[in-house]
């Protein structure tokens, strides 16, 4: 392992760069939302940042529900059925 070449994400700096680009793109998406003429079926689709908010909230709810509600109920040892 010592002589192994350093890979892309071994440097914390690169991870930081990636995250910065990612956050930057999110900002572009948030701002770009105001410059698009929307054609929608439902009224709420045209609300500012509707999809961004829904995507974020949905995933937080998904993870929290899976972790705190589902896992305590269904988690068993790997040899449960053996």
């Amino acid at each position, binding site marked *: *392992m010592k002589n*192994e070449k350093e*890979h*892309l*994400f071994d440097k914390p700096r690169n991870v930081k760069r990636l*995250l910065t680009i*990612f956050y930057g*793109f*999110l900002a572009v*998406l948030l701002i*770009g*939302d105001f410059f*698009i*003429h*929307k*054609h*929608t*079926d*439902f009224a709420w*689709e045209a609300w500012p*940042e*509707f*999809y*961004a*908010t*829904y*995507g*974020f909230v*949905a*995933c*937080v709810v*998904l*993870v*929290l*529900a*899976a*972790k705190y509600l*589902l*896992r305590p*109920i*269904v*988690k*068993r*040892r*790997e040899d*449960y*059925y053996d």
Partner: protein
Amino acid sequence: MINTVPPGLIFIIGALFIPLIKNRTMKCGYLLLLPIISFINLIHIPVGTNFTVEFLGYNLVFAEIDRLSLLFGYVFHLITVIAVIYALHVKDDLQHVAGYIYGGAALGVTFAGDLLSLFVFWEMLTVGSVFLIWARRTQKSLDAGFRYALVHIVGGLMLLAGILMHIHSTGSVDFTYIGLENGNLGSYLIFFGFGVNCAWPLLHPWLTDAYPEATITGVIFLSAFTTKTAVYALARAFPGTSMLIWIGAVMTMFPIFYAVIENDLRRVLAYSLINQVGFMVCGIGIGTHLAINGAVSHAFNDIIFKALLFMSVGAVMYRTGKVNATDLGGLYKSMPLTCLFCIVGAASISAFPLFSGFVSKSMVMSAASMGGMSLIWFMLLFASAGVFHHAGIKIPFFAFFSHDSGIRTKEAPLNMLIAMGIAAFLCIFIGTFPQYSVYRLLPFTDVVYHPYTPTHIMAQTQLLFFSALAFTLLLLSGIYPSEIRAINLDFDLFYRKGSKLAVSVVTTFAGGIAKGLDYVFIKTLPAKLAALSKHPLSSMMKEYKNAGVVTGSTPETSSMLMPSGVPVLIAVAFLFILASVFLF
């Protein structure tokens, strides 16, 4: 014009010759040639009803060719080529034979014009697929295969009963629109028979139980055929059945919760398979031309990108022998191409613009919103965000990035890379140029759909990137559930534990009876009868004495021996009594 044969026949007959070819190169050539010959055969069969055979007064049709069946026929050939390339290194003939029989059965179902031949191919699907699970040859795969077979046998029987009732009430064996409006029990049985193979909620655990236990290459076939033939059958027989809208919407929702906490990456993909089939089922339920087009084109795309994801995880498993998220990580360093292909598959299933999922899933979403189904639309949107979360991010992240597991291995074998490369190319090509690919094959040509509108691109990109933001923040804050070596109970609990309970009830109850019978008829009675026939009087005296009927000393046994004629006399008297009872 060339002479054609029913679609599927080349796969099924061709499969039987695979073990006879001993030379490796020739075998590889033969395996690759089969789908090509079969495809050429398919495109030469004219549109309409072909290969009709009369059987018991009914017309069996082995090639009902129209746009709907052709779309599935094409993609089944395509995925067979890809799966066979991926499996070329496999020396186990059983897997190749099973794979081709399974594929042939899927084609048989797709082109069946009548319910009876449909049923035969439907059962053949189970036979072919179960060997792809057993071929892993572990105790777990053996058990899972048996459970898989049992569930499908029950589903198949339900379908058979439904078909017979349907024929009885309508007098027709044609496989065409059936619907539930007639209220016949037969229609419902067919509906739920299809539902078992389609992995509807509560009927689904066979999928998440068995697929992760299948062989690395077998699961590529599995992910393509069983559920998609069921989607095809529903699209043919039950379009516009409103119950399907809700079934589909629930299918998109519940597996993603499981997928978030699942450790086995192939099981995560199995859950996401149900989630994607949910979009198709929902589209079929909505039933408009746009919705059906969306459902079947999504089936087309899903077969390719789901296979790509299974192939990339399979390649990791092949090289490292591990498939649990807890054991993997950092593999982008040693398997960069596999990692890249996995990301393409992940982007496609998440429906990123320019990737295949985008152009098909959005049709179902649009059909829901055009129909004003707001709750369904919210459920599907939740599932869209969720699928990116568990399949789009989780699979590549935990396998190839995350914490470095320290595993250093080789890149996947060349044949696997080629197969993944073809699938990845198709995902991007279809996503970028749908009008030159999947949109040309759609069953309804009267609806035109443009996925690449600014509104839609912005909406989908926002949805996905902010899902990614949620993942990033939850991971950085440590809230994201860490991968744990554990299993998660699903509905299969009821038959896995239920069967044990049933066995213990039966053994306790029936065992008790058997024990009693054993005591009376094996241990006690014969001994007593033997003693009685040998020394009747003395043993009778003994019994009487034991029972307290007589007292005093028992005479010597030897002096109580009965003359041999006496038992004969008793027997004759007994027969005489019986005869008198019967005669008078």
